[in-house]
C-alpha cells in the first residue's frame, strides 16, 4: 500500500474513532458603493464553506475550508505512550484595495487636479485584484512528558502575491508640481524554513531546557511605482529588495524552585549570514541586478538571571538582570546607475537590571517595579563619498506601580501608572555629506484606573486611561551646512492620549446574555511649529466613539439567536464611520443535525472628504451536526 494511502487511512481512522462535528454552508453577498476599494471584504464573497473537527486537545483532527480559498488542517495524535505529533497547515489570503486614496490625497488635494485624474491601479497595471497568500506549516514531534522529553519541529512559511502599497507613485499636478498619490503595487515572494530540536527535564526543584534551531529564509519585495505625465503613463519604476539568510540559534534556560525561592537563568547565541540583493528597472520585466559583493553577518548573544523570594507570606521580591550584545556588518557594491560602495556596521551592548516588589493582603495588592537599562551603540555607515560614524549612549529607566483594592460593597479598583525616561547622547566621530540625528530625551507617562462591580447578574467595569509623551531633540548634524545663518534649536514632539471605556455584561442564565462596551478616545500629536516654517500637515488630532454590543438568546430549547454590532467613528486628521452588524440563528433538528443562518453587513464611509463609501450585505445558510 502506498504511503499516501496509509496516511489517508490513518486520518480516516482517527476520524471514525469517535463522533466528529461538521458544518457546510453557502454564502452569497452583494456590494454597493465604491466597489473594489475595500476589497479586504472580499473574504465574504459567495461560495461554499466547510469544516470538520473531531476530538480535542492532543487527539484532534480539524479541517476548515472557506470560499476565499483559505483554510486550515490541524492534526494532533499520540503514538503509544509518549510519542506525540502535532501538525498544522494554514492558508490565508489578504485582499487589497485597488487604490489608497481614491478621491483626494491624504492632504485633501482633489485627485482630479492630478494627472491622469485617478488614483487607482488600473491605468498602470490594468484590471487586477491584488491578493497576498500566506501558507504556514508546522509539525512538532515530542517524545516524553511535559517534565522530561525531547521535541523536534519543522516549520515552513511561504508568502506570495500582491498588495496595493501605501507608498505612492508620482503624478504631476496642473501647475507641474509633483504629487505622489497614484496607487502603486507591491509584489512579494518570501519563504522560510526552520528545523529545531529541544530537550527538557525537570527533576525535583531543578529544571532545564535547551534547544538549537536552524533556519533559512529569503524575502523578495518589488515596489512598482508609476509616474504619470500630463495625460499618459510615463513609466513604472521597479525597485526590488531581496534578502537571503541562514540562521543558527542555540539557547539554554534552567532554574531552581523550592518553597518560597526560585531562580531562573538563560543564555542564547544566534548567528545570521545574509546575502543582500537589489535590482531595479523601469518596467517589471526589465529588472537589472544592481549589487555585487553583497554580504552581511549578524551575531547576537544574551544572558539573563532572575531570582524570586517570598520572605513573608504577603511579600514577594524579585531581582533580575540581563546582558546582551549584537554585532552586525553588511556591505554591497552598487554596479550600474550610481556606482558606489555601501556598508554599515554596528556594535550594540546592553545591560539592564530590574527590581520588583509585590505585597498582597486579603483586600489589597500592591506592585512596584523599576528597570534601569543602559547601552552603547557604535555605528558607522558608508555610501560612496558619504560617511558617518558615531557612538550613542542610551539609557532607559522605567518605574511602574499598581494598586488593586477590594472595597466594601463589592467594588474592585485597580490603579496603575508607569513612567519612562529614555536618553540618547551622541558622540559624533565623523560626518561627510550626511545627516545624523542629534541627542534626545524622551519621557512618557501613562495612568490607568479601573473600577468594577457586580450587581447580581450584571457585571460593570469602567476603565479610564491616559498617556502623555514628549520627545525633545537637539539639532541634528548636517554636512555640509548650506545656510549657516539659520540657527537650529531644540525641538519637541508631543503626544497626548486619553481613553474611557465602559463594559457591561449581563447573564441572566445560560440561555440569555447581553454585553456592551463602548468608549471615547482622543489623541493629539503636536510639534513645535517654530521649527517648521511653511511646513504643512504635521500636527494630528483624532477623537471619536467606538462601541460594540451583542447578545445571545435561546428562543426555544432547540433554537438559538446571537446578535452583535459595532461601530468605530474617528474624526480629526482621519475621519470615517465603520459599522459591522451580525445576526446568526441556529435551529436544532433531529439526529444531531442543525441548520444555521447568518446575515451580516459592513459599511465603511470616509467622511472627511466624502470619498470611500462601501457597503456589503451577505447571507450564509448551512447545516451542521455530528457524524
Amino acid at each position, binding site marked *: 500500500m502506498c504511503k499516501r494511502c496509509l496516511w489517508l487511512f490513518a486520518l480516516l481512522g482517527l476520524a471514525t474513532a469517535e463522533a466528529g462535528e461538521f458544518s457546510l454552508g453557502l454564502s452569497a453577498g452583494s456590494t454597493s458603493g465604491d466597489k473594489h476599494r475595500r476589497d479586504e471584504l472580499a473574504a465574504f464573497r459567495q461560495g461554499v464553506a466547510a469544516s470538520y473537527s473531531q476530538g480535542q486537545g492532543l487527539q484532534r483532527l480539524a479541517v476548515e475550508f472557506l470560499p476565499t480559498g483559505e483554510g486550515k488542517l490541524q492534526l494532533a495524535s499520540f503514538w503509544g505512550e509518549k510519542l506525540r505529533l502535532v501538525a498544522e497547515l494554514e492558508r490565508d489570503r489578504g485582499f487589497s484595495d485597488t487604490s489608497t486614496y481614491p478621491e483626494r490625497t491624504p492632504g485633501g488635494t482633489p485627485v482630479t487636479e492630478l494627472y491622469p485624474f485617478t488614483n487607482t491601479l488600473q491605468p498602470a497595471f490594468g484590471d487586477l485584484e491584488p491578493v497576498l497568500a500566506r501558507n504556514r506549516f508546522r509539525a512538532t514531534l515530542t517524545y516524553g512528558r511535559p517534565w522530561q522529553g525531547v521535541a523536534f519541529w519543522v516549520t515552513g512559511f511561504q508568502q506570495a502575491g500582491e498588495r496595493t502599497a501605501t507608498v505612492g507613485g508620482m503624478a504631476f499636478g496642473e501647475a507641474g508640481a509633483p504629487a505622489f498619490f497614484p496607487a502603486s503595487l507591491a509584489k512579494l515572494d518570501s519563504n522560510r524554513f526552520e528545523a529545531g530540536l529541544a530537550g527538557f527535564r525537570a527533576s525535583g526543584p531543578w529544571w532545564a531546557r535547551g534547544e538549537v534551531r536552524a533556519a533559512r529564509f529569503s524575502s523578495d519585495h518589488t515596489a512598482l511605482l508609476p509616474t504619470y505625465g500630463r495625460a499618459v503613463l510615463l513609466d513604472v519604476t521597479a525597485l526590488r529588495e531581496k534578502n537571503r539568510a541562514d540562521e543558527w540559534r542555540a539557547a539554554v534556560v534552567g532554574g531552581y524552585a523550592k518553597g518560597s525561592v526560585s531562580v531562573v537563568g538563560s543564555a542564547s547565541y544566534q548567528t545570521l549570514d545574509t546575502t543582500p540583493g537589489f535590482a531595479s528597472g523601469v518596467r517589471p520585466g526589465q529588472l537589472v541586478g544592481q549589487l555585487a559583493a553583497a554580504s552581511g553577518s549578524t551575531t547576537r548573544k544574551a544572558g539573563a538571571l532572575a531570582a524570586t523570594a517570598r520572605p513573608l507570606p504577603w511579600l514577594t521580591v524579585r531581582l533580575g538582570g540581563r546582558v546582551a550584545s549584537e554585532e552586525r556588518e553588511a556591505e554591497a557594491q552598487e554596479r550600474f546607475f550610481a556606482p558606489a560602495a555601501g556598508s554599515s556596521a554596528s556594535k550594540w551592548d546592553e545591560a539592564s537590571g530590574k527590581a520588583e516588589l509585590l505585597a498582597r493582603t486579603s483586600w489589597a495588592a500592591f506592585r512596584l517595579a523599576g528597570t534601569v537599562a543602559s547601552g552603547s551603540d557604535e555605528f558607522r555607515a558608508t555610501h560612496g563619498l558619504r560617511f558617518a560614524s558615531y557612538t550613542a549612549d542610551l539609557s532607559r529607566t522605567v518605574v511602574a506601580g499598581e494598586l488593586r483594592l477590594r472595597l466594601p460593597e463589592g467594588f474592585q479598583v485597580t490603579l496603575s501608572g508607569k513612567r519612562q525616561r529614555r536618553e540618547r547622547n551622541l558622540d559624533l566621530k565623523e560626518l561627510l555629506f550626511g545627516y545624523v540625528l542629534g541627542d534626545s530625551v524622551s519621557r512618557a507617562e501613562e495612568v490607568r484606573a479601573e473600577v468594577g462591580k457586580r450587581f447580581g447578574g450584571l457585571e460593570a467595569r469602567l476603565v479610564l486611561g491616559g498617556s502623555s509623551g514628549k520627545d525633545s531633540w537637539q539639532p541634528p548634524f548636517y554636512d555640509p551646512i548650506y545656510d549657516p*545663518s539659520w540657527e537650529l534649536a531644540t*525641538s519637541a514632539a508631543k503626544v497626548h492620549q486619553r481613553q474611557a471605556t465602559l463594559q457591561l455584561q449581563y447573564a441572566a442564565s445560560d440561555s440569555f446574555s447581553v454585553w456592551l462596551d463602548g468608549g471615547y478616545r482622543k489623541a493629539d500629536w503636536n510639534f513645535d511649529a517654530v521649527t517648521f516654517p511653511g511646513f504643512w500637515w504635521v500636527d494630528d488630532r483624532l477623537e471619536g466613539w467606538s462601541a460594540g454590543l451583542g447578545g445571545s438568546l435561546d428562543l426555544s430549547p432547540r433554537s438559538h439567536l446571537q446578535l452583535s454590532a459595532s461601530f468605530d467613528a474617528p474624526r480629526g486628521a482621519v475621519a470615517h464611520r465603520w459599522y459591522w452588524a451580525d445576526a446568526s440563528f441556529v435551529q436544532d433538528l433531529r439526529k444531531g443535525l442543525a441548520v444555521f443562518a447568518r446575515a451580516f453587513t459592513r459599511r465603511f464611509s470616509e467622511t472627511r472628504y466624502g470619498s470611500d463609501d462601501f457597503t456589503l450585505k451577505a447571507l450564509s445558510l448551512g447545516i451542521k451536526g455530528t457524524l
Partner: protein
Amino acid sequence: MGGARTTLFVIVALVAPAVRAENPCADCHSDQVAAVAQTVHRRVAQESARFCVACHGDPAKHLESGEAKDILGRQALAALPEEDKSAACLSCHQASWPSWESSAHQRGKVSCWQCHAGVWHQAVPRAEASRSIGVCASCHGDVTAAFRSAWHHPVAEGKMSCISCHDVHGEQPPEELAFDRCAQCHPQAAGPFVFPHRAIEEEGCTACHTPHGSVNRSLLRSSGNGLCLRCHVQSNFPGVGKVPHNFQLLGGGRCYDCHSEVHGSNVNDRLAPRLER
C-alpha cells in the same frame, strides 16, 4: 489482505487511547478521574496520582483517615494565592514555559487556571484557550476596542490569535517581539538590510505601527508626516541639508513617498533607492 491488516494495525496504533487505570485516587474518586480522562490530561490522570497530587497536595494523611478535611478540597484550592495555583501546573509544565516567572501574567497575579480552567477538572486545552479572543478580552477590553478599528490584524476574523504575537506564558523584550513575531508574517520588512532604519533597530516595529488596530492604513501610528517627524523634527529646515524638503512636502507629499524603503535598504543610507535613479 496483508496490506489491509497493516493498515488496520496502523489505524489502531494511531487512534487507540492507551487506557491504563493505575491512579489509586480512582478507587474512591472514579467520577473525577473519569472527567479528567476526557481532557488533555487523560494519560497522566489515569496512570498515576501525579496529576491529582499537583493540585490537592500530599494525600498521605487523607488516605489514612479518609477525611475530606485532610486534603485540599475545592474551596481550599479556590482560596489559594494565584501563584500557588500556577505552581500546581508548573510542577509538570515548568520546562515548557521556562520564563513564566517573569511573565506579565504571573506579575499580574493571573494564574494558569484563569485561562485554562473552563470547568472544574476539565482544563481548557491550549488550542481552545488561546485561539479565542474572548479569553484574553475578558481582561484586555481596551485591546478588543482597537481590533474594531477599520485597519486591524485579523484576530476577530479568526485568521490569527493573540498568541500569534504574544508570548502569554513569558516575557519578551519589545525589540525581540518585533523581530521574532512580526517577521514571521512580514519577512520583507525584517531584513537584515545593509542600511537598516535605525528606529527599528532601537525601538522595534512599534516605533511606527500600532499592531492591534489603527484608523490609518498599514496600522501606522499617524497617517501624516508627524510619524517621521517625531524623530526627524528638523529635517525640513530650509537651506539645511541637500534638499529643501518644503518643496515636496508643501504639496501634501509624505516622507515615505521618496524614502520608500522605510524598513531598510540594501542600496543607500537614505532609504530612497529611487533618488539614485
